[in-house]
């Protein structure tokens, strides 16, 4: 087998090994790049930052453990930002796995960094309800009809922050962190458009291109994949440097992702160069 043929048929185990090394080595070396927020992410930050203290923000955790590396940094940055700004934060989930993810983030962000925040006054965990986009549609007109209790089963009317919430249009901003359907698209279609409520959020990198048709008129801003999460963290750290220690999860993960992207590009180039050389040789052989 010639060198060119070898280049065209690289064993997939070699590719797997190099991808593994591309992720592991930057992690061990703690390779961190400087990330700059792009306009599509900065608009979300500016909106959350610009809302007056005590604004009502709905934060929906619509993802599961599979996409935690991409989605959790987004969700936690948004949650942290809401807490910093003193927004009343209503946490819910349209995905069954979202409730558990929200609990983890509440523990990691609110209880750890903001222990003075009072449950029921500053934030509330409403949990998961079945119904997908049907749930969004239902809470649009009657929030307490669907959420009669919080996630722990306590009467919803016993919480001070629920006193002036009856329907989705009562919220000042809807934030959703999603990894599929129902997700940000459904929040735009069934809540944002219908009630003229600002909607923004984050999705996995694979899903981000599908949401560009909604930006910027129907979707205020969009965090796409790990890069989007890192950009939000960068925006947060730029404005609130005291939260640097806890707000660098995605930024740190961008090192391995960058090197992994380079390895993929390297293999695609190798494959194409070998392909062209082989084609030229075959043409020459045919002519001869």
């Amino acid at each position, binding site marked *: 087998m010639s060198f060119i043929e070898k280049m065209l048929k690289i064993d997939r185990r070699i590719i797997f090994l190099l991808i593994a090394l591309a992720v592991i080595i930057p992690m061990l070396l703690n390779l961190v790049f400087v990330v700059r927020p792009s306009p599509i992410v900065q608009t979300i930050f500016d909106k959350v930052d610009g809302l007056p203290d005590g604004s009502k923000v709905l934060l929906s955790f619509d993802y599961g453990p599979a996409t935690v590396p991409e989605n959790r940094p987004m969700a936690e940055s948004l949650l942290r930002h809401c807490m910093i700004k003193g927004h009343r934060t209503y946490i819910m989930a349209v995905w069954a796995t979202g409730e558990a993810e929200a609990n983890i983030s509440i523990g990691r962000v609110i209880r750890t960094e903001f222990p003075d925040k009072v449950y029921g006054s500053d934030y509330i965990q409403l949990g998961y309800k079945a119904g997908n986009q049907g749930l969004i549609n239902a809470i649009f007109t*009657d929030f307490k009809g669907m959420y009669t209790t919080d996630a722990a089963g306590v009467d919803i009317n016993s919480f001070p922050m629920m006193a002036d919430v009856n329907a989705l249009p009562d919220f000042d901003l809807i934030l959703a962190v999603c990894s599929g359907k129902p997700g940000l698209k459904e929040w735009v279609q069934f809540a944002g458009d219908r009630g003229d409520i600002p909607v923004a959020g984050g999705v996995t990198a694979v899903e981000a291109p599908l949401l560009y048709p909604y930006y910027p008129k129907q979707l205020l801003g969009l965090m796409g994949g790990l890069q989007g999460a890192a950009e939000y963290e960068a925006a947060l750290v730029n404005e609130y440097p005291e939260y640097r220690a806890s707000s660098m999860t995605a930024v740190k993960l961008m090192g391995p992702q960058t090197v992994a992207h380079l390895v993929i590009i390297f293999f695609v180039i190798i494959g194409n160069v070998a392909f062209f050389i082989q084609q030229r040789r075959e043409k020459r052989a045919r002519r001869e």
Partner: protein
Amino acid sequence: MRREIPLLITFIVGTALVVALFIPHHPFPELDGEFSIWFDIIAVFAFILGGGNLLKVHIDRIQRRHRDRFFSAVTIVGFLGTLIIGLLKFGGSPGLKGNYIADSNAASVYTVADIKDPEALVRKVNAGHDPVSQYLKGNLSASTLEMADRIEGGASMPDPARTQFIDELAKALVEDLNVVLTGGSIFDERRFAGVKLDRETRAMIANPGAGHEEGIRLNRRLLQSAYPDEINPSHGTTWFRVIYNGIFVPLGATMFSLLAFFVASASYRAFRAKTREATVLLIAAFIILIGRTPLGYYLTFWLPEPLQFLHIPNLSAWILSAPNLAGQRAIMIGIALGIIATSLKLILGIERGYLGHEK
């Protein structure tokens, strides 16, 4: 009738919802929300049907001694195990109604469910017979102390009012105790001299963690030791959480992580510039791959202002917001037209596949 009634329901509901969009007067605007709640109720039943169907398919596979029957057995055990443990809420705080508090990975502050006997607790603290109670009394708010005095004064109340009073007392205690929990270590050798501390709490005192969470955990253990009959012990976590963290999370992460390897391998094999279109796609992919990392910035940040449109992050943003957007819009409009056509066929009873096959 088995076919006519569902067809009639579909026709009425479909027509009503379309009409509701155009009539902003009662009862039409409420119809959408009302039907959505019905849909949500049906969605809950769909879970039961889904679970039943899963069991049926996999039990059938085991009975037929299918070659994948062992995977089916694992599926059934996993499904039933998670269902039973989740429903019965093994582990966690005894007063737990949902899985909110016990599911958290972080140290948790008190909720009302953690206070076993608010009345007894406030009596003990208010009496201040021991150093811990004296300390806590000094940290209770004026309104909680007022409530404690009402109890001490033997204020008699009819039952509904009394229950409400105790609920309010529990909430007030939780608020005050959480300030104590989160306000740094409450341990003092003399203060806790008369309290029997277990080995784990003593170990935590000997080696206090540096973090805020460790401090909350230690304070909870200390208060629970001082008031074992009045405060519920913190059980840490539920078994459901153990399953979620120990099995579901790693499996989900593994499946998604494997994609990185397969994407790399598939890109190498399939991404060949065989045609002009494929070449354009390949170049766009390179720009997006680099543009979605900080590397894109480092490579072309030096470009002068007139050439900034060639800056890789700008090119990447343009690809996403121009050619990608146009393609996505075309697809979305096509899908929307398809949905309208299918919906009309369903409403008018032309499409009847959802009714199942006639026997």
